C-alpha cells in the first residue's frame, strides 16, 4: 500500500526580478496515514512553500506529489479543487476566517463548497466546533472571538469534512504560549482521535519535540529528525550542517 503522501524530488523556484531564487531543491519525503510530524526550520527557508506544494496549492517547478500513488498536479483544476476540499485541511498562522460570517458559518464553508445543503453543512460544523470546545461560541463573528478561539474555529474549519491530511502552518505562531499550548494539545488529541495525518510547521522547539516524527527543512531539502537536542535554538536557527535527504 502506497503512503498517504509522497513527495518526489520537489523543486520550486521564484523569480525575483532577474534573480532566480531556489526554495526547494529536490525535497522528498513520505507520510503514512494517521502519522503526525513536525516541520522546523529557520524563517524564509521555504516551510510555507513546501506546505503549499504538498497541499496542492502551488505546483512545483519540478518533481511530483503523489497522494496514495496518484499524481496530484496531473489532475484537472476542478478535480484538484474537489480533492483539496475533501482530503486536505489547512490551518495558517493567521486564522483567515471570513470576517462577515459567524464561527458556525465559517466552519460550514467547506461543506457548502462541497455542495452540502445548508443544514447538513451546519450540522457537521456544529459537531466539529463542539469537538474543539466552542459549542458556546457558534454565532460569534471572528472579531468577537479571542485569538485562541479564532484559531480553534480555523482548526474546526480545516477538519469539518474529515480530511485525511491536515497542514498547519505555524498555527500557534501568533498566540501567547499558554494559548498556543492549548491549540497544540488539541492538534495532538484530534490526530489521535480522528486518525488524521498532520504536518505541523512550528518555530516552537518544545512543541516540535513532542511530535512522534520530526522533520527539518534546510537548503531546500527535507531532513529526517530535528537533530540532537538543543540544536534547534529558540530563535529557530539551525546550527548543524545540512544532512542528506531521505
Amino acid at each position, binding site marked *: 500500500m502506497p503512503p498517504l503522501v509522497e513527495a518526489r524530488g520537489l523543486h520550486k523556484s521564484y523569480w525575483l526580478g532577474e534573480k532566480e531564487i531556489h526554495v526547494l531543491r529536490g525535497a522528498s519525503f513520505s507520510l503514512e496515514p494517521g502519522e503526525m510530524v513536525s516541520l522546523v526550520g529557520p524563517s524564509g527557508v521555504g516551510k510555507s512553500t513546501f506546505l503549499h506544494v504538498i*497541499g496542492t*496549492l502551488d505546483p512545483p517547478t519540478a518533481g511530483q506529489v503523489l497522494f496514495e500513488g496518484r499524481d496530484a498536479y496531473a489532475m484537472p*483544476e*476542478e478535480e484538484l*479543487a*474537489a480533492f483539496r*476540499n475533501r482530503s486536505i485541511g489547512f490551518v495558517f498562522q493567521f486564522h483567515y476566517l*471570513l470576517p462577515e460570517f459567524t464561527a458556525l458559518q465559517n466552519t460550514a464553508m467547506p461543506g*457548502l*463548497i462541497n455542495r452540502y445543503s445548508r443544514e447538513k453543512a451546519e450540522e457537521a460544523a456544529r459537531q466539529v466546533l463542539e469537538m474543539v470546545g466552542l459549542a458556546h461560541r457558534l454565532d460569534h463573528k471572528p472579531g468577537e472571538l479571542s485569538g485562541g478561539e479564532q484559531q480553534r474555529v480555523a482548526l474546526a474549519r480545516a477538519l469539518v469534512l474529515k480530511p485525511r491530511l491536515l497542514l498547519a502552518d505555524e498555527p500557534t505562531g501568533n498566540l501567547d504560549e499558554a494559548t498556543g499550548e492549548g491549540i497544540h494539545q488539541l492538534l495532538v488529541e484530534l490526530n489521535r482521535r480522528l486518525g488524521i495525518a498532520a504536518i505541523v510547521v512550528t518555530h516552537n522547539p518544545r512543541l516540535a519535540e513532542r511530535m512522534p516524527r520530526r522533520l527539518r527543512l534546510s537548503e531546500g531539502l527535507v531532513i529526517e529528525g530535528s537533530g540532537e537536542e538543543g540544536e534547534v535554538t529558540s530563535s529557530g536557527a539551525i546550527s548543524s550542517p545540512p544532512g542528506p535527504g531521505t
Partner: protein
Amino acid sequence: MKFRKRAFLVALVLLGAAFAGQLVLRAFLSNRTLLSPDALLAISFGGEALAFLLIGFFVSFLARGFGAREMGLAALLLAIAAFIALRQLKPPSFSYDRFFASTEELVLWAALTGAGAWLLGMWGASAGVLLGAAGTPDLRFGYEAGIARTHLRLNRRTALTLIALGLVPPGLLFAAGVLASLRYRRGAETSALGVIVAAGAVVAALLLVARWVQARAALARLQPGQRRKRPATVVMTAISIAGVAVGVWALTVVLSVMSGFEADLKHKILGTNSHAYLLKFSNDFSEWKSVLPKVAAVPGVTGVSPFILNEVILSHGQTVTGAELKGIDPATAGTVSELPRQVIAGDLKWVASPQDIPTSVVEPRSEASKQLEGPEYQQYLEDTLKRRQQHPEEEKNKLDPQALKALPGVCIGKEMSHQIRAWVGDVISVLTPLGEMTPTGPVPRSRPFRVACILYSGMYEYDSKFVYIHLPEAQKFFRMGDNIMGLELKFNDVDAARAEGRRVVSALGGFPYRTKDWAELNRNLFSALKLEKLAMAIILTFIVLVACFNILSTLIMLVLEKTKEISILKSMGARDASVMKIFVLEGLTIGAIGTAMGLLLGFASCSFIERYGLQLDPDVYYISNLPVNADVGQFCAVALISVALSYLATLYPATKASRLSPVDGLRED
C-alpha cells in the same frame, strides 16, 4: 490549452446554420407576412444574434473553456462563407445610388457577421464557463451568493437603506406631480391611490431625514476611534449603483419623451387623416357607390368615406394662399377622422347646407377659447368678428343676403383663418389652375365659398393647409362628374393598417385597387422620428456603458481587496468557476440595483412631466406641453440593456479573480 477540433467543427456547423437560418427566415417573413422592413430586420438579425450567443454557450462546454480560438477560427470561416453566399445572392444595397450591394458593402457585412459571431459567442461562452463548462456543469450559486453579499455589505440594514433611497426620491417626484395636478387640474387624472402613494412618499422622506439626522447626531457623539471605518470599495459600490441609476434614468426619460412626441404626432395625424386611402390605378373611380358597401362589410373596417383631394389657391380680400382642397362627405367623415370634433367655430355640417350659415356674428365655441389664447389671437378675433359685422367684402361685391346664402360652404383651419383673416360667414375665393380653354389661352376657374367652420387639429401643417368642401361641390368644381379620388378607411387596429388594407384590396379582387396606409403616407416624418430616437438611444446607452466601467473598476478594487479571501476559498476547494460566480453576482447585483433605481426614477419623472405639464412654446413645437409616453416595453428593453452591460463589465475582473493562484493571497504575511 489544446485546440479542440470537435468544438471547432460543431461551432462551424452551427454558425453556418445560424447564418443560413437568418437568410431563410428573412426571405420567408418578407414573402409570407406583412411585417414592416424594420420589423423584418429586427426579427431576423435578433434571432441570428441570439443563436450566436447560444452557440457560444454550447461550444464552451465542448471546448472546456471560452473556446476563443475554436470559435474564432469558425467565425473567420463563417465570414468568408458569408461573403461568398452574399455574392451569389446579390442583396439590395443600403445606399441610395445603387440597387445591388457593392463588393465593399458585402465585405463589410461578412466582416460584421464574423465579428458578431465571435463576440456574441464569447459572451455566451462566458456564461458557459461560469456554469462550469471547464469541467462538470454546476448551476448552483449557494455559498457564492452568500460571499458576494458580504462583499457588498448587503445585510438587512443596507438593504433597507437601499430600498429607502431607491423609493423615496421617485416617490417625492411622484408626489410633486400629484400636487401639481391637484393644483392646476392639468394632465392626467389623479386617483385616490395616487394621492395615498404620494402622501406615503412624503411621510417616508420625512422619516428618512429624521433618521439621518439622528444617525448624524449619534455619530457626532462618538470618539474618533469609535467610528466604524467604511472600506473604499463600499463607497465605490455605492457610486457604481448611482452611476447605473443615472444612466438608466436618463435613457428612460428621454426615450419616453421621444415616444410622447411620436404618439402626439400620430394622434394628430390620425385626427385629421384616416388610417388608409383606398385608391385605384386609374382616374375613373365612378363605381365607388357600389364599392363602398363592400369595403364597409370587410371585417376590421370601422369607417369608410369618399374624398377628392386637389391643390387650389385661396384668396380673401388682398391675401392669397395655397391650399389642399378636400371634398368630403360630412355625414361619414366623422367615421374615418376626428374632423367634427376639431371644430372650434361654426359647424362641419354647414358645408353641406350652406343656407344654415348665419349672417350674424358667430362666436367661437366655448371649448375653443383655450386654443385661441394669447394677444395675437385676441387681435385676430377682434379683427375678424368686427369686420364681419360691417361686411365690407360683401358690400363691395354688392351681394345681397339671399345670394350669400346660396354660396357653397368651406371649412378652413385655424392657422389659415388667421393668415387670410377670414371668419365664419366670410366669403373667400377658391381658384383652380385646371380652368377652361378660351381664345386667349387657358383661364383659371374661380368660385366664391362661404366659411362654414374653423378647425383646429393641433398640427400646424394641417391647420394652415387643408380646406374642406362638400363632395358634390368638389366634383362640380373640378368637373369630375360622379368620380372621386378614393375612399378613406378607418380600421379597428391602427397598427395593423397595412395588413387590413391588403385585406380590403383582396376583398375587392385586387388590381386595380390599392391602399396607402398612414405610415406610408407620412413615412418621411416617422422615419425621421425613428432615426432620431435610435440615435438618442445609442448616445444615452453610452451613459450606461460608462456607468458599467464604474462597475468594472469597483470589481477590480474588490478583487484586489479580497485576494486573501479568494486564496482561502481556493485552499478550501472552491473551484475557479465558483470564484468567478462570486464576482459576476456582485457586478450583476450592482447593475440590477442601479437599474431598478433608475427605472423607478424614470417612471416617477415621466409621471411628474405628465402631471405637471412642462410648458413648451406652442409657436415653435405646436404643442403646449412636453409630451411623455412611458411604455412598459421600452422600460423592459432599457433594463435588459443595462443588466446585460453590467454582466459584460463583470467578466474581466471575475475571470481575473478566478485565475488567481491560491498562494497569491497567502504569501504576503
